[in-house]
């Protein structure tokens, strides 16, 4: 069974601080996605990384896919209260059934003003 481990589970920081969230697995994935979920809503896609070593930036968010495509990280620079939410990583593999997108359990981020 493929597993995605996210760390930390919870993170509470002050506005302006930097943070990194990790998503690790012993399995190789074809691609990895990051979602953000706000209370009472469904997850919303932030980014997809496909190539080992790939780095993508979305304003103050930097996403990296590990060289071996087994892990990923999300770095937020100068966090703001609007960044508060649950961050989920999800790994996908081609082949087999369509329902093979594996989700991590998430990192709950709270950014205090």
């Amino acid at each position: 069974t493929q597993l995605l481990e996210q760390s930390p589970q919870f993170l509470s920081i002050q506005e302006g601080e930097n943070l990194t969230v990790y998503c690790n697995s012993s399995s190789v994935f074809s691609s990895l996605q990051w979602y953000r979920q706000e209370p009472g809503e469904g997850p919303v896609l932030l980014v997809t990384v496909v190539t080992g070593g790939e780095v993508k930036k979305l304003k103050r968010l930097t996403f990296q896919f590990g060289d071996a495509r087994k892990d990923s990280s999300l770095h937020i620079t100068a966090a703001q209260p609007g960044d508060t939410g649950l961050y989920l990583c999800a790994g996908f593999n081609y082949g087999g059934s369509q329902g093979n997108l594996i989700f991590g359990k998430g990192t709950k981020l709270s950014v205090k003003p």
Partner: protein
Amino acid sequence: DAGITQSPRHKVTETGTPVTLRCHQTENHRYMYWYRQDPGHGLRLIHYSYGVKDTDKGEVSDGYSVSRSKTEDFLLTLESATSSQTSVYFCATERGLSGANVLTFGAGSRLTVL
């Protein structure tokens, strides 16, 4: 966005009663999914559909059934609800992006089984 509507958004029911959750999409996406989200477990796939009348089981399918008679509608049924099925249920549709399977989620249906 895929224009996904879930109904009902909130439901309280009693153990042993049948419950049906509806997911309606307006984007003509082929693939649709039902997930449940629970503290400590994250998102877990219940069932998914790859076309009209074509469905398959996910990781936690026991106690659930699904039906898809039209492209736009995907129904999740709990034949006899149990307290362990208290959860937040999310429907999702799939859009292709950069060769990866990317999901667009509905806002969720919170189900409480007493």
